């Protein structure tokens, strides 16, 4: 029964979602979340180059063939991200940022989905070693890392766009380079006509500047909180089934397990939804930074 308890739910529902050290290299600890990141990255490195080879083969002739099977599955997702999520925000800049946004989406999705597979419970049952695996996106450090990249990308894109804008409007490359960060800061403030606009410029600039930090913070917290909450609720519900066995009422275990099944379906949806939201918001932020007029 100990194994069953371990398999279904730990005595503490938080243990599923917290990072656990599985190795230590000097001052650096290697956690199960890091391992999950590497597994996700490995899977992506396995899948996408294979898809690329098949794409190259399909595009080789004069008449490109339609994809099939797994390629079709991934293409439909990639095309959705490209056409429905990224293009409406980025327009002509879509292809420039698409590799980053595809990588971001699939990296989050793979981590979310891998977290749903009870690999940790299986490894506990088979090898007797706990917390080898987990849900990397349920860790704030991981989502914060991804949000930091988003922060750098959308502000970097905004500054680069202002640099090009300056060069196009007759500034020298050096002057445009120096002025680009300030132009970008100024471009963040929405245009308000008249004296009110001049009066509101500074407060709005402060607000927008603060907002530019709030945006990635919200990205990190949203993904982390959703994945954490889903797993905690699932683990708590699952914990009911073995915990109440001595209470001689199987009528509670069954609803708990059924509720877990339903919540797992919901979490499967949330796994896709959160990856979508992260990428959707990032592309919106990039779009706003690159084309502030829009």
């Amino acid at each position, binding site marked *: 029964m100990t194994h069953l308890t371990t398999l279904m739910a730990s005595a503490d529902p938080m243990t599923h979602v917290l990072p656990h050290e599985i190795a230590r290299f000097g001052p650096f600890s290697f956690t199960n979340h890091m391992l999950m990141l590497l597994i996700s*990255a490995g899977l992506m490195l396995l899948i996408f180059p294979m898809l690329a080879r098949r794409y*190259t083969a399909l595009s080789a002739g004069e008449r490109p063939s339609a994809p099939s099977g797994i390629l079709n599955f991934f293409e439909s997702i990639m095309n959705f991200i490209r056409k429905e999520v990224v293009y409406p925000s980025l327009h002509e800049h879509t292809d420039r940022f698409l590799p980053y946004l595809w*990588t971001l989406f699939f990296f989050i999705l793979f981590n979310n989905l891998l977290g749903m597979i009870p690999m940790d419970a299986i490894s506990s049952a088979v090898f007797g070693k706990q917390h080898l695996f987990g849900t990397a996106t349920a860790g704030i450090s991981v989502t914060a890392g991804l949000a930091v990249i988003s922060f750098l990308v959308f502000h970097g894109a905004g500054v680069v766009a202002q640099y090009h804008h300056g060069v196009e409007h007759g500034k020298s490359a050096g002057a445009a380079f120096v002025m680009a960060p300030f132009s970008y800061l100024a471009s963040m403030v929405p245009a308000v006509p008249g004296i009110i606009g001049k009066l509101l410029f500074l407060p709005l600039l402060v607000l927008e500047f603060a907002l530019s930090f709030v945006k990635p913070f919200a990205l990190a917290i949203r993904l982390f909180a959703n994945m954490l909450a889903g797993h*905690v609720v699932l683990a708590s*519900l699952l914990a009911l089934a073995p915990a109440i066995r001595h209470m001689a009422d199987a009528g509670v275990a069954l609803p708990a397990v059924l509720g877990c099944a339903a919540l797992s379906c919901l979490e499967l949806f949330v796994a896709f939804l959160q990856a979508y939201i992260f990428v959707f918001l990032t592309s919106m932020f990039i779009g706003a930074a690159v084309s502030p007029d829009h």
Partner: protein
Amino acid sequence: MRFSLRHAMIATLCFSAVAFASGGGENVDPVSPDLWQAGFTIAVFLILLFILGKFAFKPIMKGLNDREAFITNALRDADEASKKAQAQLAEYSQKLDQARAEATAIVEEGRRDAEVTKRSIHEEARNEADKMIERAKREIGIARDSAVRELCDLGAKLATDAASKIVGRELSPSDHERLIRESIDEISAQNASRN
């Protein structure tokens, strides 16, 4: 003691709260980020982005763009072909209508020409017939006049002959009858010899 679903839910909540408060057994704060882990995430992501961007997403994007361009071109070609076919159909329809109108006009003209020809032939035939009738009438008149003239001449001659015969002897009624019969016979013989 009966254990209801509500009790179970309360137990779960208490259980979760206690577990959360205990810090997950390892006293790890779930909301305090670890810089090393965040840095590791950034590094893994950037390496992944570099490799995938270079070796996977570039060919995939090229494949997608090529196929999109191919489909767009095929759609445009099909649209152009459809428009061309529509234009040709309209042109051919117009030509067909024109040809039909021309054919109708030609048939009408032919019918008109035939009518005119028929009328002129009729007219000519009638004129010819009238002329022939006139000619025949004239010839008949001429023949009658000449016959009358000949008859007069013959009558005069017969009268002369008869007078000479009367002068030569006295005529009895039977002579009269014989003379008349001879004259008629002579006239008949003359007519027969003329015919």
